[in-house]
């Protein structure tokens, strides 16, 4: 190998177009298309009594107006429940346009198509929808109380009761030396990618085919959904995820109503139709996440070892359950983290409220689970007067205990069996990295500046790379160019670079020759999507396998030409050569030409493969039985189960005890995602995740009032951190490769966000000596807490008794 590529911080191949303004995001496509805009419900729960469009039809530039009445066939049926589950006993989904009843502010009621977006919004303003207001349910506690029902036929507001247990938890608790029970809350945030959603649909009348660009994390499944809903044959629908301006989960949900309605209009009108979601729409009609109430009972021995854990949770799933109960399942199963919990029971009710739907946001239930488990560890430590790190250490799964079976069922229906890890190694590195053992000196130093300093830590294990599968296609062209495609999509993770590194490494070609396409159903039709930190694990391995297939074929053809044994050949820098015999070589591009026996010499290179080009073996057919023309290979990777990444974070906060401002002064990350394809990209993922973790802990929340109105549906009041709010992050790595996949990878996309809320809550608690049981927390809330005489006091030094 002349250049090592796998594991190197290779600069991203995506960047040149993105830094010069040549990226192509959905809203950049299709100038002059008709524009769609939506009339959305201003009420959280109401019956539609009338829709009067008369005043709108004379606006110059209006092209079409659609209501539920205009939907036919499958479009008039509810949107799919994407992930059914036996415990999801009362699934409910909305319609592409509201039918009779609206269930949250922002639900689409009317679609307008006009000559441009300005005009479309003018038309929306002229449409009068009459509503009869219905009682509104906001928040888990109101949903649970069920004084009112969100869905008339679900009177208890419970969509699902998720329940798993690994033994007799009540007996185990009864037998425990100590028990603690407590309740805590975590509020909503949202993915909030900088690019909202967007759909551009073009109907080719002559070909009777549809091409849709959509800002999605799952183009193949959007394609299938569009075909099903619009009653088109699958091969007549192509869906492309072009450059996507961030996803973080919200774009894995599909089909969004707009992904169906915009193509529907394009077909009906015979003209391209375009919709670009604006920021307000994104706040009130896309998805949120995180809100849960957690009641935890833990049993433990004198040393702080957990003997039993019983978690009762309520998860706010919003108005509908299109994405099933993935978030509460992930919370339930990932909650146990790196710890050996002898007996565990978890029961989470997923409840309806008249709010925007709740579907995965980076972390997807894990931040909540981590918050439950890690705060439990803190409480045990405080109760026994032990060091918080030490209590964690005593509960960790040992390095020699892998594979470790939790006897739980994960979100992919497979067992939660940790494949590999070294959790004590993480803890040791974290303690060193953050200076855990020298905090007393730092507390004193901070106090001398009038600040209260606190530190917190949190550990997590993250199931990544769930199946069912992803595929990869690798093709070497006669030009030497290597085309790579995979069906899953990219939203900034650098897949074009990481997958090119894998192919260059596996195939022995210069990375400059490799071109990667993702998320384009014209190139690769089979895929699941980009979520759950799965792209590198799933498509990375599939592409590696495909590249290995190409390599095997190339060596076979080259061996014939070079009259050598396959075992004696190697490929380096795009040249197949006999090891140790300089000159005995053939360029891979020539092998590609020869792989496709030709009759016609359409270009100079092709001459080499034509039928009179050289002596052939006329005892064999030109393409051998079982072989195929072309130097290409498709392969799939389908894992037996998820692979489990892990990590540990620590936050150091300083609190100003006059203003109660909270400053995260240090943030330390130890991260283990197995083998790393590109450490620069992985660190970037961690940085971004930590910023979202800090945002979720201290700044971001969805502030619904009792009427179900989102009070802060703008970037002015929904406080996504600027650079000024994000601490510097120090990162240390540990690599315990996964034994489950050929490349030994574990996912890295979500890790950074998972422990943020838990470790920052712990640090604030440590600084101020008051129990932090509701997150996020703002200075005004902290002020309320510290001056509340009834607020629970907690010790602020390691080992100090409660």
């Amino acid at each position: 190998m002349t250049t090592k590529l796998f594991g190197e911080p290779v600069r991203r191949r995506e960047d040149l177009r993105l830094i010069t303004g040549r990226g192509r995001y959905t809203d950049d496509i299709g100038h002059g298309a008709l524009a769609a805009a939506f009339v959305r419900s201003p009420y959280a729960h109401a019956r539609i009594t009338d829709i009067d469009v008369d005043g709108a039809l004379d606006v110059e530039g209006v092209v079409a107006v659609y209501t539920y009445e205009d939907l036919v066939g499958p479009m008039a049926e509810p949107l799919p429940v994407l992930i059914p589950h036996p415990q999801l006993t009362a699934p409910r989904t909305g319609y592409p346009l509201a039918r009779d009843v609206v269930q949250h502010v922002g639900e689409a009621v009317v679609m307008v198509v006009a000559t441009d977006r300005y005009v479309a919004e003018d038309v929306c303003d002229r449409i009068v929808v009459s509503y009869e207001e219905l009682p509104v349910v906001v928040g888990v506690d109101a949903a649970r109380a069920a004084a009112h029902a969100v869905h008339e036929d679900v009177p208890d507001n419970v969509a699902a009761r998720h329940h798993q247990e690994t033994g007799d938890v009540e007996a185990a608790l009864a037998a425990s030396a100590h028990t603690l029970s407590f309740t805590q809350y975590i509020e909503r945030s949202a993915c909030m990618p900088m690019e909202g959603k967007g759909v551009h649909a073009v109907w080719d009348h002559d070909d009777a085919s549809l091409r849709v660009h959509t800002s999605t994390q799952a183009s193949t499944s959007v394609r299938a959904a569009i075909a099903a809903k619009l009653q088109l044959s699958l091969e007549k629908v192509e869906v492309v995820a072009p450059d996507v301006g961030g996803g973080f989960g919200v774009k894995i949900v599909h089909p969004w109503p707009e992904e169906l309605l915009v193509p529907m209009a394009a077909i009906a009108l015979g003209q391209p139709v375009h919709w670009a979601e604006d920021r307000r729409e994104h706040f009130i009609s896309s998805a949120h996440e995180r809100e849960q109430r957690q009641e935890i009972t833990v049993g433990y021995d004198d040393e702080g070892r957990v003997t039993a854990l019983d978690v009762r949770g309520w998860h706010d799933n919003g108005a509908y359950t299109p994405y099933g109960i993935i978030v509460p399942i992930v919370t339930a199963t990932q909650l146990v983290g790196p710890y050996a919990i002898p007996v565990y029971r978890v029961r989470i009710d997923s409840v309806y409220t008249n709010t925007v739907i709740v579907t995965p946001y980076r972390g997807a239930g894990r931040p909540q689970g981590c918050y439950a488990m890690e705060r439990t560890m803190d409480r045990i430590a405080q109760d026994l007067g032990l060091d918080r790190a030490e209590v964690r250490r005593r509960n960790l799964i040992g390095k020699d205990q892998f594979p470790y079976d939790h006897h739980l069922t994960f979100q992919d229906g497979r067992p939660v069996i940790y494949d590999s890890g070294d959790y004590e190694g993480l803890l040791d590195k974290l303690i060193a990295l953050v200076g855990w053992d020298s905090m007393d000196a730092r507390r004193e130093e901070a106090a001398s500046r009038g600040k209260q300093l606190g530190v917190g830590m949190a550990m997590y294990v993250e199931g990544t790379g769930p199946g069912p599968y992803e595929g990869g296609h690798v093709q070497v062209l006669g030009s030497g160019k290597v085309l790579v495609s995979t069906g899953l999509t990219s939203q900034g993770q650098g897949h074009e670079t990481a997958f090119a590194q894998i192919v260059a490494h596996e195939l022995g070609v210069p990375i400059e020759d490799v071109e990667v396409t993702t998320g384009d159903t014209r190139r690769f039709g089979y895929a699941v999507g980009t979520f759950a930190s799965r792209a590198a694990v799933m498509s990375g391995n599939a592409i590696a396998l495909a590249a290995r297939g190409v390599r095997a074929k190339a060596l076979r053809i080259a061996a014939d030409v070079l009259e050598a044994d396959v075992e004696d050949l190697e490929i380096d820098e795009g040249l197949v050569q006999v090891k140790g015999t300089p000159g005995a070589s053939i360029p891979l591009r020539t092998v590609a030409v020869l792989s496709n026996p030709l009759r016609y010499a359409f270009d100079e290179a092709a001459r080499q493969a034509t039928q009179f080009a050289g002596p052939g073996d006329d005892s064999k057919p030109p393409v051998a039985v079982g072989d195929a023309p072309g130097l290409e290979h498709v392969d799939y990777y389908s894992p037996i189960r998820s692979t489990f990444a892990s990590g540990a974070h620590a936050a150091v906060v300083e609190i100003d005890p006059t203003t109660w401002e909270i400053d995260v002064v240090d943030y330390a990350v130890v991260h283990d995602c197995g083998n790393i394809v590109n450490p620069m990209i992985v660190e970037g993922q961690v940085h971004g995740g930590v910023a979202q973790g800090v945002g979720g802990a201290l700044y971001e929340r969805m502030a619904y009032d009792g009427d179900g109105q989102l009070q802060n549906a703008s970037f002015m009041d929904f406080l996504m951190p600027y650079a000024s709010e994000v601490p510097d992050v120090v990162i240390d790595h540990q690599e315990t490769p996964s034994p489950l996949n050929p490349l030994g990878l574990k996912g890295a996309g979500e890790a950074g966000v998972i422990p943020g809320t838990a470790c920052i809550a712990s640090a604030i608690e440590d600084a101020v000596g008051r129990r932090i049981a509701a997150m996020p927390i703002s200075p005004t809330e902290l002020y309320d807490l510290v001056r509340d005489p009834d607020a629970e006091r907690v010790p602020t030094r390691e080992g100090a008794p409660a």
Partner: protein
Amino acid sequence: MTDVSTERAITVTVNGVARGTTVPVRRLLSDALRHDLELTGTHVGCEHGVCGACTVLVDGTPVRSCLVLAVQVDGKAVTTVEGLARDDGRGGEILHPVQEAFRECHALQCGFCTPGFLMTMAAGLEARDASTDITEEEVDEIVGGNLCRCTGYANIKKACRHAAGLMKEAAR
């Protein structure tokens, strides 16, 4: 007497080229650039002036193009991300130091906020004395007004320092 118009023909020098177009007066500059002039490098992230993705230079000064009407730049010079790199005279381009730095430092992931950061940073660095070392306060000021959801800003700040370094070298 000045007329009240609902539509205006405007001429704007965009990236050094005079461009004429007729726009409804309510057209936001961001939309005029993206949809009328088909310069889609300028991105729209919030349309209320908070995220900074749409930042362009008007007569050399960074402004939010979603908070300016297209008619208001009639006769002015607008620079967008498409105009940041220089022509190398041989059909290629010479990237601006901030572009080089973003690529070098992995300061972008999805790339959507990137044009706004690049324009803000290019103007911010060009306005300072390139021969001096940039301070952390300057970096904070330059990157502090734009939102990014992917990077956590660490590498954007790094790119700002790196670009300042490149410009310092070039200033020698």
